[in-house]
């Protein structure tokens, strides 16, 4: 039996050694899993919050039967969607049809990799940073990945072989391309002020004053473009029920249908996080004694409530008005703001 214990000892040594050698790799993988799981588990909570709040806004109760305060409702909905029959019409392109919802959810989760959500701290002698990756062009990475998210809608519209889906896909991609410009240009004035593309540096630059006080116009433009970018009301043209049935996801059923909404909700969280980081000072709490991560989360939840508030307040904008608004109002304002910011920065 000696050789067994010897072998086990050697194996144990090897495991300990390789673990000790690869601590950054292990920390990185754990962070990746934690972030992905956390982002996905926010979705049911957000669905519940939206339905309850919408109910209150419209002077009704909202879902309140499943569990305390209707908290079990998202769970019940998920079970229902999972057991629903998956229908794919014969004329659809099978591969692309399955690919589309995966692309939407994948890009939504990946975009969160560079979002920092708290100041770094030290534990067990390891410096833990509360972000997946701090690449030197963090904000560009978010824009690049959200640009990839458009393909989910385009592919869904194309592969369904349905006029409504095609029109929905076309509209949503046109809308996202148009408002991405405003989003990028209004973020550019913040980049000008900080002189860095890294989101961590941007938060550090706001330690005394949040950028919303210095750049109120950029904040407004960024937030409007952000609402449009996530395809939320009042900019939810892609799914205008009266004209397009349900837009690009008309033909989807069951869990694949739910995945599009998962993507939308995750994008909402990412957009709120971005607004918090760029304009509300990230995890800086300005004298209020709370943990950095609590300060960050509180701001994000507040912005999410604003998203829901907007949805229950404004009627949907007509499609041509939406495009005119984006190109003829928001974009010139962005350029003007950029010009002024640049001039002040140079002087």
């Amino acid at each position, binding site marked *: 039996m000696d050789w067994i214990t010897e072998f086990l000892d050697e194996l144990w040594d090897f495991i300990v050694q390789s673990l000790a050698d690869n601590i950054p790799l292990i920390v990185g993988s754990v962070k990746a899993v934690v972030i992905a799981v956390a982002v996905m588990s926010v979705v049911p909570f957000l669905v519940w919050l939206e339905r309850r709040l919408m109910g209150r806004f419209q002077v009704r109760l909202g879902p309140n039967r499943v569990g305390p305060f209707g908290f079990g409702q998202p769970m019940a909905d998920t079970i229902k969607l999972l057991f629903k029959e998956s229908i794919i019409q014969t004329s659809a392109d099978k591969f692309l049809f399955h690919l589309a919802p995966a692309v939407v959810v994948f890009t939504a989760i990946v975009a969160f990799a560079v979002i920092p959500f708290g100041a770094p701290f030290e534990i067990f002698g390891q410096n833990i940073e509360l972000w997946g990756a701090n690449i*030197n*062009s963090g904000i560009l990475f978010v824009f*690049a990945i959200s*640009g990839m998210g*458009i393909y989910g809608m385009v592919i869904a519209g*194309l592969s369904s072989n349905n006029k409504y889906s*095609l029109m929905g896909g076309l509209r949503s991609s046109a809308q996202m391309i148009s408002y991405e410009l405003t989003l990028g240009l209004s973020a550019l004035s913040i980049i000008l002020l900080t002189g860095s593309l890294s989101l961590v540096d941007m938060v550090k630059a706001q330690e005394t004053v949040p950028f919303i006080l210095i750049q109120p116009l950029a904040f407004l433009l960024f937030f409007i473009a952000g609402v449009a970018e996530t395809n939320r009301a009042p900019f939810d043209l892609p799914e205008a029920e009266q004209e397009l049935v349900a837009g690009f996801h008309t033909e989807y059923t069951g869990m694949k249908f739910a995945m599009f909404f998962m993507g939308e909700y995750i994008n909402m969280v990412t957009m709120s996080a971005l607004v918090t980081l760029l304009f509300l000072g990230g995890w800086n709490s300005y004298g209020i004694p709370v943990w950095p991560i609590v300060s960050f989360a509180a701001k994000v939840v507040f912005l999410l409530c604003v998203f829901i508030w907007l949805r229950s307040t404004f009627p949907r904008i007509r499609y041509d008005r939406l495009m005119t608004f984006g190109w003829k109002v928001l974009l010139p304002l962005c350029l003007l703001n950029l010009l002024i910011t640049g001039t002040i920065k140079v002087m």
Partner: protein
Amino acid sequence: MELLIFYPIAGLCVALALGVILNTSPVGSAMCLIGMMLGLAGIFVLQQAHFIAVLQVIIYAGAIMVLFMFVIMLLNLKQAASADWVSRDKNLYITILTSALAIGILYKIVDVTFMADLDSPAELPDTFGTVATVGESLFTDFVLPFEVASLLLLAAMIGAVVLAKPKLD
């Protein structure tokens, strides 16, 4: 370790590039092209050029390919896939011109590869591939090509508007 990541990405890129030209449906070709652009971005990341990689994704895989998809959607090429897509008109002059360009680029690539000293790779400075470095070289060493390219793009944009205008009015 780097080669372990490089070879799968490079292989995938070549396979997808073949997929672009061999695919019978325009949608499939476009999807393969998007995949290849993303693979190229991966290779840029391996070369420590993160900024260029992100730009590759935003401009090529994002903006340009979305417009390709738009054209495919609007013209609805799906039905015409089998017949028209394969047998399109071949213009002899364009064929000669593009071949000459392709041969020129290939010659340059092979030339540079053979001239390179592979045994003693140069050390990269810390600032390599950052936004500041790329911007600096763009506006000092390469300012003329940069301006020429932007003029060309402007001309193309005006041309597109002029071509589309009579149909809009």
